[in-house]
């Protein structure tokens, strides 16, 4: 607070000196822990209620209506969810989301563990190396995904050029053109981007393991593998669990990677629930149906949150 403000405050207090009791009461009231807390808390809580709470419940409300681009919304109850249950593309997108999340998470977790173990040694330029390895995670996803799209280009992309150049193949595969390859490709890009998050987090976990534990295990005659299994891994499990849960949430609800790379194609083979919700609500103008797709992801999120809460409580 500047001297000017302080002076004006002192003046204000003085001018109200004729009712010092009321002022003192007010000050005492504000100084109470709960009153002070709620005075500060109110603005952010109101903000979150307006821009997170309201949209959420409004989304639930929307999912009970059928609303085409033109025309008034009509109440259909659970009709949108019934429509989805009979929609093969919806089920395909559910299957895709599960496959995508499962495969990418496993690859990221093992790759990240490997990266952390390699990085947990002493070598020169470690800080710079760590910063460089984390780059895929911090560069705007959409921009690096565009680069990947060019890497996957069937004729002139890097992968196929290298394959042809080295004589490994006459013409490379169509990376984004067939259902199986497209799924493999989006999993690859998601892994590339997310692996450093695992690596750096697990590395931070590794650095909290006291050196003495390793030393005493070595004295007891434990080899490298034994030490990894009985000392390193158990103390890393909490970190791995939390990072994996986070990553599952981020991957399960991923939108931009698939939106940019394949748009859900070919033939819906890479549509995730998020991209399907987008194409229904924004592409086809069916807000209610789109909301219903988005809400179908809530149980998964709920389950993961419950798991996480239980785990954190137990720790």
């Amino acid at each position, binding site marked *: 607070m500047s001297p000017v403000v302080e002076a004006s405050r002192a003046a204000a207090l003085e001018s109200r000196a004729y009712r010092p009791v009321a002022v003192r009461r007010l000050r005492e009231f504000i100084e109470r*822990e709960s009153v002070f807390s709620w005075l500060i808390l109110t603005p952010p809580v109101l903000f979150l209620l307006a*821009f997170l709470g309201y949209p959420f419940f409004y989304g639930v409300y929307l999912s009970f209506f059928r609303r085409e681009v033109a025309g008034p919304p009509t109440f259909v109850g659970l009709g949108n969810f019934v429509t989805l249950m009979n929609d093969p593309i919806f089920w395909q997108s559910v299957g895709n989301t599960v496959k995508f999340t499962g495969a990418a998470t496993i690859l990221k977790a093992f790759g990240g563990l490997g990266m952390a173990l390699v990085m947990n040694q002493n070598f020169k330029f470690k*800080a710079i190396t760590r910063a*460089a390895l*984390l780059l895929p995670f911090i560069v*705007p996803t959409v921009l690096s995904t*565009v680069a990947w799209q*060019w890497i996957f280009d069937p004729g002139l992309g890097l992968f196929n050029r290298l394959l042809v150049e080295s004589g490994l193949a006459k013409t490379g595969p169509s990376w984004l053109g067939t259902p199986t390859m497209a799924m493999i490709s989006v999993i690859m890009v998601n892994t590339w981007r997310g692996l450093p998050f695992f690596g750096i*987090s697990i590395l931070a976990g590794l650095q909290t393991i006291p050196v003495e534990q390793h030393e005493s295990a070595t004295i007891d005659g434990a080899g490298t593998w034994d030490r990894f299994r009985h000392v390193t891994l158990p103390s890393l499990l909490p970190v791995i669990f939390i990072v994996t849960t986070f990553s599952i949430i981020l991957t399960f609800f991923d939108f931009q990677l698939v939106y940019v790379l394949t748009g859900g194609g070919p033939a819906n083979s890479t549509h995730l629930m998020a991209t399907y919700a987008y194409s229904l609500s924004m592409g086809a103008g069916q807000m209610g149906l789109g909301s219903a797709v*988005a809400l179908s992801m809530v149980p998964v999120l709920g389950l993961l949150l419950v798991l996480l809460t239980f785990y954190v409580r137990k720790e």
Partner: protein
Amino acid sequence: MVGELTWRKRLLGLWMPLAVFGVVALFPFTWMAATSLKTNAELYDPKAMPLTIRHPSLVHYIDLLRETNFLTWIANTMLVAVVATGISLLLGTMLAYPLARMRFRGAPLLAITVAVTYLVPQSLLFVPMADLIGRLKLGNTLSAVMLTYPTLLVPFIAWLLMGYFKTVPKELEEQALIDGASRWRAMTRVILPLCMPGFISAGIFAFTLAQNEFLYALLFLSRSDVRTVPIGVVGELIRGDAFYWGQLMAGALLGSVPVALIYSFFVKYYVAGLTAGAVKG
């Protein structure tokens, strides 16, 4: 003999895997740079080596700046990221401080709510959010994203800052109160200044997230002059089925530079923010 053995062990256990991780992490950026510096003639020549450049040229960069609103997009992105980060730091602090240091009714419930909202993904909310922004008549304004980005950032910042606020000993605050300071003064003059590293971590993290954001920008910003870099590059450099790879890569690279620069200056704080959740639990 022993020296040779450790050398081989270092090679197999450290340098080789490190090289693999490094190449995998960085080759897309090399490819971006190589593409952006080639002329179209060389770019689309199937006989030219893909990763070498025979005739380096800035033509794609010049075209990018001349033919598109790229500089406007950069300015928009910066403005939005700064404002959204500022709002989020302020609201996040107001949320985290009482939760970390005060006892009041409703505190446990509120703490859980903050943790849950932190993990609620965007793709769950974008349909009603688009409707809400439309009704507020904020479509195609930067205010639309300045208002909605904090919904993604505030819970995270609050959560991160709570960890920092808790580390300041209670006695410092009590001493200030005994000395006659109000709670507000104790907070702004004593506690918060001690948490600078927390603010830097939260700020850097929020800033990069805001620069990264795509879905809300895609929904709310369709006019070229209000776009941010991610949505501008994807929305305007991919025209129909034609890809202008040289310009696209120039745009992708230039768009990544500000984030990468800021990140490289504050990498320590960034990593602290990144790992805070996972390691502290």
